[in-house]
């Protein structure tokens, strides 16, 4: 059963005359992983920024489970179930790995100022549950042993995993991953692949921006090719990578 989770309709955006999104139409379905491919500057990250509301589009609509998101700010969209990671990870350096994940829960009752002053018993329960969920997620990624470490002390690949784990702490219905594999090797690579698949199998719609063609081929059910802010083609990853015209666009610039 695949349902449309995210629908992007006729999204347009330009900065000072440079078009970063041209008539973008894109649908992401529950349980499917879509790879966003294209050369640097094709507008892939910009598309993520437009979908999440980090950048306001000039025109067009974004729907999550049929409900328009256009009037919502970035954090509110995230709370609706639109989760994303960053190309440059953006972990919180002053917090431990576990605390980074705890910030990832959209709502943490213990963080409300009134609750800080007047603590209730149920807060401790919530706290415990959140910690367990975070520890569980870390363990599944093979990071159980670094929960207490500072993020800056982790190797790059593990930091990328923490970034994904943090984005998964909320109740994501749609997950946008921005270059999760760049700089990731070995065990972290395998863990990342496994986790993304697991997330999709739970019914989350996943979209991945990635330059690592092997990763895209192994993982994605479908590929979307972007060039100069426009979607040029959509199809199986094998078809897209075989297409001589797209290959020309990808490597020709």
């Amino acid at each position, binding site marked *: 059963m695949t349902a449309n989770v995210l629908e992007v309709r006729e999204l347009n955006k330009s*900065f*000072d005359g440079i078009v*970063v999104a041209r008539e973008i139409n894109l649908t992401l379905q529950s349980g499917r992983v879509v790879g966003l491919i294209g050369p*640097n*500057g*094709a*507008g*892939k*990250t*910009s598309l993520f*920024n437009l979908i999440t509301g*980090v*950048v306001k589009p000039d025109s067009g609509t974004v729907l999550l489970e049929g409900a328009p998101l256009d009037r919502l700010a970035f954090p509110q969209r995230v709370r609706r179930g639109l989760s994303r990671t*960053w*190309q*440059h990870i*953006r972990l919180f350096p002053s917090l431990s790995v576990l605390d980074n994940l705890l910030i990832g829960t959209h709502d943490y009752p213990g963080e409300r100022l009134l609750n800080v002053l007047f603590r209730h018993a149920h807060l401790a329960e919530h706290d415990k549950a959140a910690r367990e969920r975070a520890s569980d997620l870390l363990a599944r990624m093979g990071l159980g042993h670094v929960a207490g470490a500072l993020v800056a002390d982790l190797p790059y690949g593990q930091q990328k995993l923490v970034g994904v784990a943090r984005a998964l702490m909320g109740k994501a219905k749609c997950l946008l991953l*921005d270059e999760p594999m760049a700089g990731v090797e070995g065990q972290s690579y395998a863990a990342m692949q496994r986790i993304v698949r697991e997330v999709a199998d739970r019914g989350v719609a996943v979209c991945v*921006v990635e330059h690592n063609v092997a990763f895209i081929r192994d993982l994605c059910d479908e590929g979307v090719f972007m060039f100069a802010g426009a979607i040029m083609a959509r199809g199986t990853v094998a078809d897209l990578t075989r297409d001589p015209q797209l290959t020309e666009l990808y490597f020709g610039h």
Partner: protein
Amino acid sequence: MLDATIILQILWSSLAISCYYVLFAVAFALVLKVTRLFNFAQAAIMTIAFYTAFVAVQWLEWPAWVAFLLMMAASLAASYVLERLGFEALRRRGVSVMFVFVFTFMVSEFVAYVAMLVFGTWPQTIFPAMFWPVTLVGNIAVSAWDLPAIGVTIAALAALSAFMRFTGAGQFMVAVADNPALAELYGINKRQTFLLAMMIAGALVGLGMFLYGTRAQVLPQTGISLMLFAVAATIIGGIGSLAGAAVAAVILGIIQNASVLVISSEWQGFLLYVFLFAAIVLFPKGLRLPRRRFGTASHRVTRGTAAPAAESKAA
């Protein structure tokens, strides 16, 4: 009653007075454009420039042209010291932009307190008498101060404009303002360019303070008010646009001066803060959209918000 003569008279005096506002605003906007710093220490430079001339004329009884040269030298020297010993060190340490703001503001306050200690809290002027002979043009009184002040201001702005358009150093300044990283890649010496921008701003401030000190009274805290006026004009003029800042300064100057017609004079000073708030609340991005892309806008926002632009460019 309000008749045409009164209105014209007020318009003319406001226009003349806005000379120094324009110079201060352009100086502030220039430093912001090139170095991307809100240089609140501009008030310190104003204070130093004014009291240098004051001492030269009133204490040492030196001729006016010597006092003028001295105050320009003091203004340039203060700018040089501020850039070389202050900003460069802070830039090297990579402190946040806010840190520099607070630093510059404290410099201005420190200098104001020193001035208070040395010169007291009485209003002063550069020359003992501030009487300027008046000629009637039509029915409008034009003082002997007005025309030279306007002339000098226009000349200074024309020189700055020509410098930025036609000389290599001026072009470098524009390039650094647009994209410091790229400019550095092309081998432009950022350090020299920043210093140059600070020195030019220092010269404009020195000149502006000479005009101010020959027309109005100065207190140790006056520099800070004058600077806030420049800040408001810079924001309203659209950050990064020198012409915008200049035009905004003239308009604000006229509004403030003409306000005597509608509000009592003790609230006139308060108008400055109204401008500042109006600038921030109503025109945070300036009145007109800038024609040219300027890097300042994206850089000016906090670290967090600046990043999406950077990331979108990286994609």
